[in-house]
């Protein structure tokens, strides 16, 4: 398939990108004050003496020179070994795998929410351009865009969890409740409602704006005039001819913003105490857990690349011009 060749090329092109990221972050963190052993000492809360610290540094290979450490890391990476997390005391791959589901779920639900409502609202606004629905939707979009996500999350907790007690204030699922099957799915779903809204809001605003602009753009294209000249009514013109074309820029944007969304989940996961990758990233920066951080960088880069790959596939399905070469 041509599409896969395209994706393969893209993957190959992202290898140097990945290398730049890994080496860059590695070197950057070397400049940070304190290393993972300092963070470990902080966790102990005192009483660690210099010998213990020196032992730990030797144990984690922190006594080696920077190039040697980098070389070791990259060589391990080539063998698909992400290394051992000093803070979590287990292989980085395990640590990340434990945290990945929550983030994936959160991102998927936030993305679906933002995409769906962005699409619907964008179309509605474009259909009634400059009318009151457009004004209302566009204003809402701007307000959503301007709302700091963590603040929205906090306020949502105050309202929905504290005062109304409709939804849980945080967490991924009811711990120890031992739910299984559908009950558990429902439980996780209720826990994800607020985080999804919080993370999705800004993207909803962005998609809405793009969709509206794109609809207006496409509505002006020649083939829409052709469709009208064929005698199609407006609804059919929009559904059959405009929508799919107008969705293309939005689909592209999803790929472009996968990284941003992952960044946003750092804050959202922290607000809602979700056991996700974003929070893990934050913790590993603070704990100087270089292996874990690099692991996350690696995985999130893979994630972004994967999302882009899926977006490419989707785009190719939507647009037959892609994948036909060129």
């Amino acid at each position: 398939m041509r599409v896969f060749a395209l994706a393969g090329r893209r993957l190959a092109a992202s290898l140097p990108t990945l290398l730049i990221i890994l080496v860059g972050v590695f070197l950057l963190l070397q400049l940070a004050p304190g290393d993972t052993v300092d963070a470990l000492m902080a966790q102990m809360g005192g009483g660690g003496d210099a010998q213990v610290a020196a032992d730990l540094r030797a144990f984690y290979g922190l006594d080696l020179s920077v190039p040697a450490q980098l070389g070791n890391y990259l060589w391990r990476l080539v063998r698909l070994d992400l290394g051992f997390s000093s803070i979590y005391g287990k292989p980085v791959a395990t640590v990340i795998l434990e945290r990945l589901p929550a983030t994936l779920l959160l991102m998927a639900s936030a993305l679906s929410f933002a995409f769906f409502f962005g699409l619907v609202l964008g179309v509605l606004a474009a259909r009634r351009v400059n009318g009151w629905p457009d004004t209302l939707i566009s204003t809402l979009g701007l307000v959503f865009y301007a709302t700091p996500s963590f603040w929205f999350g906090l306020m949502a907790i105050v309202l929905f969890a504290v005062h109304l007690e409709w939804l849980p204030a945080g967490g991924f699922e009811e711990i120890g409740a031992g739910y299984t099957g559908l009950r558990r799915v429902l439980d996780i779903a209720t826990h994800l409602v607020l985080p999804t809204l919080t993370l999705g809001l800004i993207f909803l605003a962005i998609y809405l704006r793009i969709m509206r602009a794109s609809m207006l753009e496409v509505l002006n294209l020649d083939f829409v005039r052709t469709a009208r000249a064929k005698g199609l009514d407006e609804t059919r013109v929009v559904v059959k001819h405009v929508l799919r074309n107008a969705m293309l820029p939005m689909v592209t944007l999803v790929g472009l913003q996968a990284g941003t969304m992952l960044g946003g989940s750092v804050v959202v996961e922290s607000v809602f105490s979700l056991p996700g990758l974003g929070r893990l990233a934050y913790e590993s920066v603070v704990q100087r857990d270089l292996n874990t951080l690099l692991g996350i960088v690696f995985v999130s880069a893979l994630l972004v690349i994967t999302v882009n790959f899926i977006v490419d596939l989707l785009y190719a399905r939507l647009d037959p011009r892609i994948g036909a070469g060129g």
Partner: protein
Amino acid sequence: MRFLVAYLRSPPAMIGLVLLLVVIGMALSADWFYPRDPLSLAGRPLIWPGANPRFLLGTDNSGRDIAAQIFHGARVSLLIGVVATSIAIALGIVIGALAGYHGGWVDDVLMRVTEAFQTLPNFLLLLVFVAVFGSDIVTVTIAIGAVSWPAPARLTRAEFLTLRNREFVQACRTIGMGDGRIIFREILPNALPPVIVYASVIMAVAILLESALAFLRLSDPNVASWGNLIGLGRDVLRVQWYVSAIPGVAILVTVLAVSLVGQGLNDALNPRLRKR
């Protein structure tokens, strides 16, 4: 002139401008209304807004006047926004212009680096920067600028890619003009408007990024920043929610104002869109 008229005719753009002027007014008048250090102890902690006429918006959990912090915070937010945006735009333009004009391996290398910055979640990168270089306001501002440049770089590059093949650029080359002059004197002025409009997006994002950083307590504690206040208020969120709510509204209004002004500029610069 026509541009100005077009701008002033749009109600959202005007609302944005007024809001922005209010925020700028707050920033300028902060010293006049609240001459004391906004971080100094002003009264008992956690006085509700309106409960004590001395503290219009109440006090936070450190006993500091929230109103004073809101006024002084406007300075910080605007300053961070403007400076970080300038850094991002300047970096973005130079990198985008070089990549877009030269193409070939220069483009490849620069775009790989840009992709690297875009693949890595920018907030994560910001965290790393702050962990490495500390969190004083200068560092934070530079770091925000340093993680925000890829988008304007891509935009500039895209503009350059189309403009460099436009016939007026080719005409400049046929008369023997040098590359530097073509890039900066001929192409750049034409590539600039969309980038300048995009600056409003960066500024909005910069303000949001700083506040998110402050919320995680990673921003400069020596300045009265709105994000710091939200982060501080998080501990008393359940009852004294106003400590977080008030600066949140301030951020919202500022970002909204910047976005509206940006959109107004865009519409005024893009007459094709204005008609719709």
